[in-house]
């Protein structure tokens, strides 16, 4: 469980997060939506321990984030960045195995249990057939699956993802989201991700945080909080929200930019 209370943080360039409060229960899949530069990634980087000089409190399973050691945190929270930009040749399997780092002492090597975990991660993410390929020669969608595989070998309950579906074509987007929702269902993981695609978010997420200029505008189940007004407030656009007979959102249709 993640509890965030009065979180504030500012970059040197003037951007800041203002008084962020979040409650994410175990076994949920949650997305943070908002325009570019609204602070989505920053929140993820704080929870994952990349940014440490924030104000306010973050609790993970009722323990303050600042009390976690690096290794302990990496066994609890894994972070899947948008991309892996690397000029060096590693095989897919080598990258996925790196998730075992916090569990190994420097002198120990992978044992049978480690290999089982690595195999399982490759199976779940469908990367077994490319395990010996170089990370430099695989597609964006495959890279994303490899990074999710690495998060799985970390055996962390919480997985954070920074725009896991950006830069992917629609088939890969669906594939990735399918993997994530299965992880929540079958492996009891908690997933928090930043996203751009409102429609996919609505379809796959239990809860959405709408964020703009470092502030949370609205939070709750997608059907309750996504409407003309919130979309206009957050994205500054006019959008049509098409609903089914039962009131659930079927599709968001962006019409035009406000004021045009």
């Amino acid at each position, binding site marked *: 469980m993640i509890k965030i209370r009065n979180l504030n943080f500012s970059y040197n360039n003037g951007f800041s997060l203002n008084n962020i409060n979040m409650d994410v229960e175990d076994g949920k899949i949650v997305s943070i939506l908002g325009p570019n530069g609204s602070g989505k990634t920053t929140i993820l*980087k704080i929870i*994952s*321990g*990349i940014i440490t000089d924030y104000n306010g409190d973050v609790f993970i399973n009722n323990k303050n984030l600042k009390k976690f050691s*690096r*290794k*302990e*945190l*990496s*066994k609890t*929270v*894994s*972070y899947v*960045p948008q991309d*892996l*930009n*690397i*000029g*060096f*040749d*590693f*095989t897919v399997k*080598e*990258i996925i195995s*790196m*998730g075992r*780092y*916090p569990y*190994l002492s*420097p*002198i120990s090597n992978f044992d049978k249990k480690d290999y089982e975990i690595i195999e399982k991660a490759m199976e779940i993410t469908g990367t077994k057939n490319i395990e*010996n390929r*170089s990370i*430099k020669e695989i597609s964006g969608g495959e890279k994303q699956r490899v990074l999710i595989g690495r998060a799985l070998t*970390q055996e962390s309950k919480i997985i954070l993802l920074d725009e896991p579906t950006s830069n992917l074509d629609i088939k890969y987007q669906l594939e990735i989201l399918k993997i994530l929702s299965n992880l929540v269902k079958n492996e009891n993981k908690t997933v928090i991700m930043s996203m751009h695609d409102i429609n996919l978010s609505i379809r796959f997420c239990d809860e959405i945080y709408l964020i703009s200029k470092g502030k949370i505008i609205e939070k709750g189940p997608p059907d309750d909080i996504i409407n003309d007004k919130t979309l206009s407030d957050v994205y500054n656009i006019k959008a049509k929200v098409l609903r089914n007979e039962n009131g659930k959102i079927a599709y968001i249709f962006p019409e035009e930019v406000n004021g045009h």
Partner: protein
Amino acid sequence: MLIKNEKNRKYFTISIILISILSIIFSMAIGPVNISISEILEYLFLLKNKGTIGIILWDIRIPRIFLAFLVGSSLASVGVVMQSIFRNPLADPYITGTASGAAFGATLAVITNLYLISFLYLPFFAFLGAMFATTLSFFISYLSGNRRNENLLLAGLGISIFLSSLVSYMMYMDGKDLDYLFYWLMGSFSGAQMYMVYTVFLIFIPSIITLIIFSRDLDLFMIGEEHAKTLGMDVNKKRIMFYFISSLLTGASISFVGIIGFVGLIIPHIIRIIGGSSNRFVLFNSIFLGGSFMVISDTIARSFNIIEELPVGIITSLIGIPFFLYLIAIERRYWT
């Protein structure tokens, strides 16, 4: 990556080790006085050190070959470390300023005559100089607010050239002859002595063991700092540790033989092309390939007996620079 299978990587490593042993034995045979392989084996395994052959072998060739091997291994290993922590395949102790810093430190020990009190002042000052130059180049690129590879390497290169010039200046002012300066800037094993071998060896063994043990951390540096942090690595602590060991190895190597460029660049790169970037593999193989490459280069250098033997740095650079240019031309994808 040519070999992706772990078993074949093992065979590759075994053949590299065999090549190392063969290069050492053949180098013992080659020189103004040719010694046959059977004689070498006889003198080595029976520890015979009498007669002309015994003296040539034990007093001249073995110190020189062992020192060359250790220095080649050290520089190649430092190359592996630097390329990993700077995430740049073009980093090596020469380009990052570490080597020039070491030469600067050692030169200080020479012109202040401290080295006459104890020869250990040489490696110690070289270590301090290496540490200073590496930290300085990191600090300067850090000040620029941009810790990207390019700035770090440019800063390192600047410091490297500046310190090399300072070394030349100090040598001129101190009235050392040009041969001596030449020796410092191009590197040579012609003054190799057994005490140098022991000194470098004592620093080499613990440093290399530490590097192999922590080679997984180098992998994490390679994929990036944010990745490394979220995988539970203490990035700053590890960086300092790797700087420290790199400076130790570079200092120890350079204090006795001068600056030898490009070994740290080409050796790890060859290994990576063959077996990928996993650092335990790269490091282990670079140790042996770096060592034997240096032994072979030095054998070529001392066989060039036209007037005087060549500084070994000329040989390693003559092989290294074309390779470096090839890298720039072919491996553009490395600059992300």
